[in-house]
């Protein structure tokens, strides 16, 4: 009998892992391949071509929507990162304070709240406040949605961080703010960056909340894609989706580098 029979992968384990990953990736790979299809018929292969990409870059309505989405994603991710980091610091370092349970409750609720409810409720607020719907209302809505994801990412990093570093800084005469800025912030910075990127991609992806909170004439890219997709498959949409996937891939690679940096720095900082 071998020493650790269960630590080895059984055939069943390998099969389920391979099938699972194939299931997750194959549809995306097929989509990307077909975006380079020269044929107008989505299903007939007519050779490689960049035709649908040039069509996208010559479609002002789509370009406007893409520009709107990028601006919303950048601004809301930045706001969400600021607020989410503050929330993470308060939750992991603030010990007990009045209303902490409610605070963590409303921070985590948007993670699972159906988007139709979040979207509808924000819209009714904006209408009651008589706010003009457009860029800022979508940005506020996305900040509210994505901030809790930032909190989760940053909080998990803060939880792993050795507190004695902050304590040492304060024993050596730093005030808490200075200790935070000089010691804690550099250590959690990669997690903050990863949080920003997650918020950015989530905002770039959202259809439902944006549909509720946007106004006439300021559709985001997902809203446009969605209304096109409802009418059927179009090769131009394949190209746009591939471009969005490429952008997100770049962001993910950057995020994973950032996370690697976190662990590397965390280890080198520990003996200090």
């Amino acid at each position, binding site marked *: 009998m071998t020493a650790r029979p269960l630590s080895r992968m059984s055939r069943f*384990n390998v099969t389920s*892992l391979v099938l*699972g990953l194939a299931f997750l990736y194959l549809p995306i790979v097929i989509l990307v391949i077909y975006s380079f299809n020269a044929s107008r018929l989505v299903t007939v292969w007519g050779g490689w071509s960049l035709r649908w990409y040039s069509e996208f870059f010559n479609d002002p309505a789509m370009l406007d929507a893409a520009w709107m989405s990028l601006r919303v994603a950048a601004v809301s991710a930045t706001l969400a990162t600021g607020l989410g980091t*503050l*929330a993470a610091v308060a939750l992991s370092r603030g*010990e007990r304070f009045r209303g902490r349970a409610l605070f963590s409750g409303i921070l985590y609720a948007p993670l699972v709240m*159906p988007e*139709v409810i979040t979207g509808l*409720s924000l819209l009714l607020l904006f209408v009651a406040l008589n706010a003009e719907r457009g860029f800022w209302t979508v940005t506020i809505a996305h900040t509210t949605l994505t901030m809790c994801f930032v909190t989760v990412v940053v909080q998990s990093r803060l939880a792993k961080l050795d507190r004695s570093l902050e304590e040492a800084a304060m024993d050596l005469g730093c005030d808490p703010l200075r200790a935070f800025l000089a010691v804690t912030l550099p250590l959690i910075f990669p997690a903050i960056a990863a949080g920003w990127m997650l918020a950015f991609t989530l905002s770039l992806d959202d259809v439902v909340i944006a549909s509720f909170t946007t106004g006439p004439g300021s559709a985001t890219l997902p809203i446009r894609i969605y209304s096109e997709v409802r009418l059927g498959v179009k090769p131009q949409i394949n190209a746009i989706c591939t471009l969005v996937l490429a952008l997100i891939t770049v962001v993910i690679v950057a995020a994973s580098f950032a996370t690697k940096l976190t662990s590397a720095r965390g280890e080198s900082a520990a003996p200090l």
Partner: protein
Amino acid sequence: MSARRLFAGPARSAAIAPYLWMVLFFLVPFGFVVKISLSQTAVAQPPYLPVFDLTEGFAAIKAAFAALSLDNYRLLVSDNLYILSYLRSLTVAAVSTAILLLIGYPIAYAMARLPPRWQGIAMMLVIVPFWTSFLIRIYAWINILQHDGLLNQILLALHLVSAPVVWLSTDSAMYLGIVYSYLPFMILPLYATLARIDPALSEAANDLGASPQQTFWLVTFPLSLPGVGAGCLLCFIPIVGEFVIPDLLAGSNSLMIGQTLWLEFFTNKDWPVAAAVAVVLLVLLVAPLVLYDRLQRRQLEAER
């Protein structure tokens, strides 16, 4: 220790800005939803009658309270359409969650068995689709499932079917889309608990003569239950309110509640009824939400 206390005060004040933001943009809006669900539908912009007008003083408030009506809720109970929508949503969510657990568990289990170096890569591979656009992933399936799509082409080429099968606008397509989109939400919490289980426990069971099946059902599976709970809730709750997937992949003869809400709001412009639909949906989801919160808190305490 004193330093830790010193830190706690300023850290507490870090909560102020996010707290105010979430109260204003998450908690207060629910108040508006409740308020508007109690008001009358009107053909106007915005399409409901105002409930409060504080400028007119106490008499106006009194009149406003008198005007509050439960008509919208009465409609939800009396019209079969709404009850059927809620039931369909709960059924779809329950069935999808069960399928997700059946598919996700073996994958998470295999991930936890991988050598440590590979586990990080496998986890990354599962997380990446979660980051990529959800809409794009549904669209990718429309590409494959459409009348002359890849799936039908393959089935025809293999002579498994004699004519193209209708896949789009069916419940099977919808379930496929839901399972595809939510799979990472199921795998990640399962993997997190499975990876944390001490391998010595199953080794001990093995040494004491348990078969691999016995070891799994008596040791590993019970220990993974917190992950099963978290994964199921993370999938079940959002699926109940799902809109995009059923709208794009399922047929239009029976609607999920998210679609009904969308229809009332955007097509019928009946905001009060849409708000009432949302309030009832929220009440239905509060129980699992509270459960989820408890589970998470227990897990956090266990980690400490």
